[in-house]
């Protein structure tokens, strides 16, 4: 029998597996399955382990996703996480309150941060349960995107345009941390690492600046991560930089629902696979029929020939998305995602939704 891992490996090799792999990237939904608050859920590795296994059984996705929340990485730098009852935790006050603090900033050690340790425990427990059948996707925030949480977006943009020396120093610190954190997850049992780098998307910085900043940082960092990597733009756009992203050595790009997957797939030209691009925010009000239509549309646009994993556009399904929608998405993959995709006519799917 084809395992989820086989399916994913085949599609990443730009060949067609038995069906389109589907990554339903649910994190907070684990709290619902355990009847816990989001805060309590993320407080213990056992909760997230159990939650992920239940979500896997219920939604029959092709990966486990032991991602807690982005702000854990800021906790490592001395920051805090703020919880709410109905959505993802967010980072609190910036830890870099003044650019001069960058001059003495040191990379934290993974072992010193209890939050990161919980993630590693979760990954190891999941690995013990699924072995090599289901890919376990670890997550890091890229050294280039992390500063938005470390210092605030406005201060970071000012730094990017005005203080190249401090940018370089901050990148060196974040690079050291990111590499250690990614490799710790791989050692614990993660199959690959999803490198979240939305600041590199053309939504956030122009290509020319990306080539001077986000891209060299990604090249250096991905080269030292000892496993396969996917680059997620968290729904930021990629048109015009797909080849540049492939040049960083990444195997997958997470793409925006504001772009046409067929056009991006053409731009990828078999060098990098695509992950996406169902609109998570809009998903919360979809009917099962709409969910099916969206799945069909994306598979028609990007599924043929492999090199494609169906997922949401952001890398996390919002708390508000109901169970029925997730089940409808998964059922639609069984209906429309089995290879060969004989029902797809021509080389283009329908127009992208906004």
């Amino acid at each position: 029998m084809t395992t989820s891992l086989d399916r994913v490996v085949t599609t990443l090799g730009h060949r067609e597996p038995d069906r389109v792999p589907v990554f339903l990237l649910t994190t907070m939904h684990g709290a619902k399955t355990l009847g816990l608050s989001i805060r309590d859920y993320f407080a213990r590795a056992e909760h997230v382990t159990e939650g992920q296994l239940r979500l896997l059984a219920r939604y029959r996705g092709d990966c486990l996703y032991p991602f807690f929340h982005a702000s854990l990485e800021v906790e490592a730098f001395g920051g805090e996480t703020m919880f709410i009852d109905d959505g993802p935790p967010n980072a609190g006050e910036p830890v870099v309150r003044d650019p001069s603090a960058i001059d003495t900033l040191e990379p934290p050690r993974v072992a010193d941060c209890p939050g990161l340790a919980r993630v590693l425990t979760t990954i190891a427990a999941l690995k013990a349960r699924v072995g090599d059948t289901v890919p376990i996707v670890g997550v890091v925030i890229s050294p280039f995107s992390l500063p938005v949480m470390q210092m605030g977006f406005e201060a970071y943009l000012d730094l990017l345009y005005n203080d190249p020396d401090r940018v370089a120093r901050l990148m060196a610190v974040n690079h050291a941390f990111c590499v250690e954190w990614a490799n710790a997850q791989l050692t614990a049992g993660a199959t690959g690492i999803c490198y979240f780098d939305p600041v590199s998307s053309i939504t956030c910085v122009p290509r020319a600046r990306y080539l001077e900043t986000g891209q060299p940082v990604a090249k250096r960092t991905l080269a030292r991560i000892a496993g396969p990597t996917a680059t997620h733009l968290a729904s930021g756009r990629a048109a015009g930089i797909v080849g540049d992203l492939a040049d960083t050595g990444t195997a997958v790009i997470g793409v925006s629902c504001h772009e046409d997957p067929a056009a991006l797939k053409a731009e990828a030209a078999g060098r990098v696979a695509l992950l996406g691009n169902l609109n998570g925010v809009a998903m919360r009000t979809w009917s099962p029929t709409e969910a099916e239509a969206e799945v069909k549309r994306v598979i028609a646009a990007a599924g043929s020939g492999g090199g494609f994993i169906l997922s949401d556009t952001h890398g996390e399904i919002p708390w508000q998305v109901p169970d029925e929608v997730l089940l409808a998405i998964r059922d639609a993959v069984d209906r429309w995602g089995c290879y060969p995709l004989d029902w797809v006519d021509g080389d283009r799917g329908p127009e992208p939704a906004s």
Partner: protein
Amino acid sequence: MVELKTELFDALASVDRLRAETAFDRALAEAPPLTVIETLIVPVLADLGEAWQEGRIALSQIYIGARVCEEMVARALPTPDRGQDGAPCGAIVVLCDYHMLGKRIVGSILRASGVALRDYGRMEVDALVDRVVADRLDILLISTLMLPAALKVREVRDGLARRGHRPRIAVGGAPFRFDPTLWQAVGADAMGETAADAIPIVQRWTESPR
């Protein structure tokens, strides 16, 4: 002006402050500040917003562009407030979130177009309702980045209604861009896809107060 518009757009998109100022000064040599704002700054900011929506320019360019325009206008027109007595009273706020960049950009763009609004910073629902009532606000601009915060606009609208107030509410920020039906669902009166959309919305509401 057409040629200056292209020049200013290109200068801002390439984050060339000096070139932007030269274009602005050339315009000022031909027309009074208010005319320059209306015929040069406002349309260029709108073009930048549209270009961002289409994926032709990036947020960093919008942010720097908005700031440069804000500073140039402040230099040419030290008190941009055109509001006379009886003009609608407006404010901008970040609701529940801790993400301030959207409000920062909208604020800069409005100041660059000669509109003055109060800055409420970031607020929770109840405190915001109290303040809007106390200030007898006519126009409220709300920026959010996280979906739960965007959904809270409904509580603001309902809280104000319970107190007998119905200011016009315009919303913006990522969740509203990803779900184009969300602004109506939470009871807002308008939504801006990009920061520059705040200009026509506020102008429209200023010209036809309720």
